[in-house]
């Protein structure tokens, strides 16, 4: 038996992982947190980009949870390894391009690697049977433990009494009776436990912590894959899907239109990678062109750029066209009328 058992907790920033960790800490276990960054995490990105959101209070909820618990939090970049989960999920996708079950298996597997490398004894998650339709079901709980390779060193303190005893219980490190038997989608038991522990101002569920659960985001990612003919992506690809209006006027290219100053500034960071446009006779957005672009496409993209500028009602708008390292030139174009932009162009 270890002197003092050590556990690593998967901290998402939500209430369940906060509570599950605290339940185990109450039993004298040393706990440290781990949080994985996939590139699709919702946590604060769009708020950081859009100027109008900059005044909103910002915090990383996983770090906030760690502070509440008084534990260390290790944030791990898994962007590269995670691609295979997104592209080839063995258990398929949920309602959108969310590979929730494979994601959970992968994260528990990575936590196991961390546990073994740091000589910890078991893993904690905030899972609750019946809480999520894809990854937190009675039948998927053993799949996660088995396929991650963690087996009986995986403890779910919030629903432990509904599951077979784990190693920490049989070894006497944890008292099963001091854990819980939560079940289903109700949040009331968790809210009552949060009150008991004195947790306030915890993160409220707001449609998931991952962009892949978002329908609009998934449509944009599917469009990216379909038009490129490959599912490979890099971090810039998936970041750009979170920013601006995306329109595909022709199969060979799309445009990304900054919606406000913060997004324009963010898109400026990509000027060397994309052909891009900017109105000069009127104020307006920075527009990136993504794809194989012909001279005829340039004119159409310029007219679209003019449409989203303050010169949308002017007779002509001057658009600066910048190649990827090529010379800059200007075009005077007639803004494309709104009724000539099919709804199907918007991705």
């Amino acid at each position, binding site marked *: 038996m270890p002197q003092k058992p050590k556990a690593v907790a998967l901290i998402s920033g939500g209430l369940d992982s906060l509570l599950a960790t605290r339940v185990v800490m109450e039993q004298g276990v040393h706990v440290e947190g781990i*949080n994985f*960054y996939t590139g699709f*995490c919702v*946590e*604060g*990105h769009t*708020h*950081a*980009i859009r100027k109008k959101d*900059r005044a909103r209070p*910002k*915090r*990383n909820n*996983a*770090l*906030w949870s*760690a*502070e509440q618990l008084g*534990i*260390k*939090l*290790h*944030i*791990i*970049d898994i962007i590269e390894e995670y691609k295979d989960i997104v592209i080839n999920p063995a258990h398929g996708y949920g309602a959108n391009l969310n590979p929730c079950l494979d994601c959970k298996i992968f994260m528990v597997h990575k936590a196991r690697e961390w546990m073994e490398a740091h000589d910890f004894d078991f893993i904690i998650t905030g899972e609750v049977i019946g809480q999520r339709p894809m990854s937190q079901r009675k039948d998927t709980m053993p799949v996660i433990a088995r396929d991650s390779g963690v087996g009986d060193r995986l403890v779910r303190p919030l629903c432990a009494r509904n599951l077979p005893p784990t190693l920490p219980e049989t070894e006497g490190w944890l008292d099963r009776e001091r854990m819980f038997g939560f079940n289903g989608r109700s949040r009331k038991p968790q809210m009552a436990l949060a009150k008991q522990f004195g947790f306030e101002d915890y993160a409220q569920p707001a449609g998931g912590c991952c962009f892949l659960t978002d329908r609009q985001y998934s449509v944009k990612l599917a469009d990216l894959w379909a038009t490129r003919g490959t599912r490979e992506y890099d971090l810039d690809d998936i*970041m750009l899907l979170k920013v601006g209006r995306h329109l595909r006027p022709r199969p060979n290219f799309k445009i990304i239109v900054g919606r406000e100053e913060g997004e324009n*500034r963010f898109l400026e*960071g990509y000027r060397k990678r994309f052909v891009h446009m900017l109105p000069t006779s009127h104020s307006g957005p920075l527009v990136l062109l993504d794809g194989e672009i012909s001279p005829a496409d340039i004119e159409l993209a310029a007219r679209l750029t003019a449409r989203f500028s303050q010169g949308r009602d002017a007779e002509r708008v001057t658009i600066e066209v910048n190649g990827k390292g090529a010379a800059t030139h200007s075009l005077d174009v007639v803004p494309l009328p709104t009724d000539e932009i099919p709804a199907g162009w918007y991705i």
Partner: protein
Amino acid sequence: MSATVVDARHLLCPLPVIRTQDAVEKLQPGDAVQVLCTDPGVVHDIPAWCRVHGHEVCDINEQEYEIAISIRVGASGS
């Protein structure tokens, strides 16, 4: 002794935190780190990360579009 510089400009949180964490792992208690960032979220996230790991935030210098955060590595390392 000069500070280790972490260039996290044009990265969005939590990547600046991760880059800082990776740099600090290689350093000794008392060492200095300067993190350069553009995401305004770092003003909250890096100090929060420092608090949970016992590092000291010595200075936060916010310019219009760039932020420099100076850190002193704490006794427990990473």
